[in-house]
């Protein structure tokens, strides 16, 4: 019986007069694949930042594996097993691509589990890059990250997540800016992660691709949760249709 590994309770965050996230709650079971959707500015990224510690909530709490992680520092949360990508791909522009992926291998989490072996890091990094679709025999993994095209940078984000060996992966608009081919190439990677037992949260605008993999969807609008359930059901809800398409009044 899968237990709830992530409990988000009544999170609130406002900036000045703007309520970015208002009273959002949900629970996540192990192995779930949650999609978070909503119009621009509905608070999706803020929600992710609140969960991963990059922004402190005004009120509310987040529990992971039973531990209270509300407002804890991002690196502590990452070490508990939550990895995330950034909406604006944050690579280490001056380092070669594969070195980007090495850095999480220094975290206490990875070092503990691997026994801290040196010298293997380069190989691990290049393997990970290959998994997300960097052509192995080309020079691409060695190129300076700042020179990589956008699609590669996004996949680099994903590889960096995977390097942490996380249990929960949160992807913030991973597919934005990617071509159809790149998305098609990345979906199997994500599906593989799911099969291997990771719990996934995906914020996306590309609903078609998202609904192929997610088993549950939450819709945010103006910072509030307006729907929560299986994709098909959610998209038929009045509130959701109104949020996306506008109503006739």
């Amino acid at each position, binding site marked *: 019986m899968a237990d709830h590994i992530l409990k988000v309770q009544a999170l609130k965050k406002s900036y000045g007069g703007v309520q970015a996230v208002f009273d959002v709650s949900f629970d996540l079971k192990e192995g779930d694949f949650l999609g978070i959707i909503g119009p621009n500015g509905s608070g999706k990224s803020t929600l992710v930042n609140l969960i991963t510690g990059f922004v402190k909530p005004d009120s509310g709490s987040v529990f992971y594996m039973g531990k209270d992680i509300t407002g804890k520092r991002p*690196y502590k949360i*990452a070490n508990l097993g939550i990895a995330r990508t*950034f909406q604006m791909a*944050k690579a280490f522009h001056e*380092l070669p691509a594969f070195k980007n992926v090495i*850095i*999480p291998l220094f975290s206490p*989490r*990875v070092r503990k589990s691997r026994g801290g072996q040196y010298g293997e890091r380069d190989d691990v990094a290049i393997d990970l890059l290959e998994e997300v679709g960097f052509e192995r025999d080309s020079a691409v993994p060695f190129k300076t990250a700042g020179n990589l095209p956008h699609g590669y940078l996004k996949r680099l984000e994903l590889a*960096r997540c995977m390097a942490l060996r996380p249990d929960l992966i949160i992807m913030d608009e991973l597919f934005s800016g990617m071509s159809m081919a790149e998305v098609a190439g990345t979906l199997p990677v994500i599906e593989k992660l799911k099969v291997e037992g990771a719990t996934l949260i995906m914020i996306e605008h590309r609903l078609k691709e998202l609904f192929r993999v997610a088993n549950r969807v939450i819709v945010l609008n103006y910072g509030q949760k307006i729907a929560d359930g299986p994709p098909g059901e959610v998209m038929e809800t009045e509130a959701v249709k109104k949020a996306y398409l506008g109503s006739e009044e």
Partner: protein
Amino acid sequence: MPRSHKEDKGSKYRKERLDRGIKARSDSIFALSSYREALYLVFPRAVIIIGLLILPLVLDEYWTKVLVITCVIAILSLSWDFIALSGMLSLGQALFFGVGSYLAGALNHYWGVSPLFSIPLATIVGGALCTILILPVLRLRGIYFAMVTFVLPLIIISIIEMSGVLGGVEGLSALSPIPNLWVTAYFIIFALLAFFFGFRRLMDTDYGLVLKGIRDNDQAVMSGGINIYWYKAQALFIGGAAGAFVGAFMTHHYRFVGLPAFSMDYTILPIACTVVGGTGTFAGAMLGTFILMPLTEFLRAIGSWRVVFYSFLMVIFIIAVPEGIFHFLQRKYHQFERWVKTE
């Protein structure tokens, strides 16, 4: 401005830069394949090492003293560069220098500790003290770090001046010296070489990789589960200790410590030297220092215009020649240029 395109008899040309053959041949293990390749790599380093070791033998006493100060500033520049490579912009090398100076001076003056012990003690304690002082700002944007490191030495000067502790305005004098000029010179030269090659080696390791990552994009490093504050504190300690080290050294070299230990010069000079030489490479810091310091010695005659000179030089370089002289030289050494016909 060097051209990168030209036209000649109707054909267009562009400039192309390629690595020299010997550079490619001396990459990694192949460096050992022949004496020529090995020499190519060893030559620049040998120049530095041998050059530094010979200098005290050929210079007279006055210029040897200049050499000593140059080495001191060089170490301050290296430490500045190191701290900058870890993502922190220090406007307070004077803080590290001054704290180290006073610690060594106080140990020697009040408790009679000999330089043999006061210098190492001042180095470690000085580095730790400065790190602790600055610790709270590590969480904020880099600009706050710059501001606090700038303000602290100046405030400390005022405090010492006003309250008269630690010798007040007169400072502490008649401190134990370092045996003789030869020992002084070679001691600091070895220290410089150790710091230079040590820092370079450190940044090449995976530890340095994390530091470089922090500078590049600290949030990404954090999301990878690494406590960036701990790493930053460590980098600050190492850089700060280097600064404290030379401060302590100078205290015994001059046999005196006073308010000038916290003077702005010890902040401005390292930055100016590093900027001119080229930031981020350590070699640039060394190069810049060994160009600027003897130069300012020659300019001693023009008094306070000296400071005007190197501060404006710094501004010009940071705007117009940001990569510094070293990158230019490095490029010349490793690459050659040629005109290539374009279709």
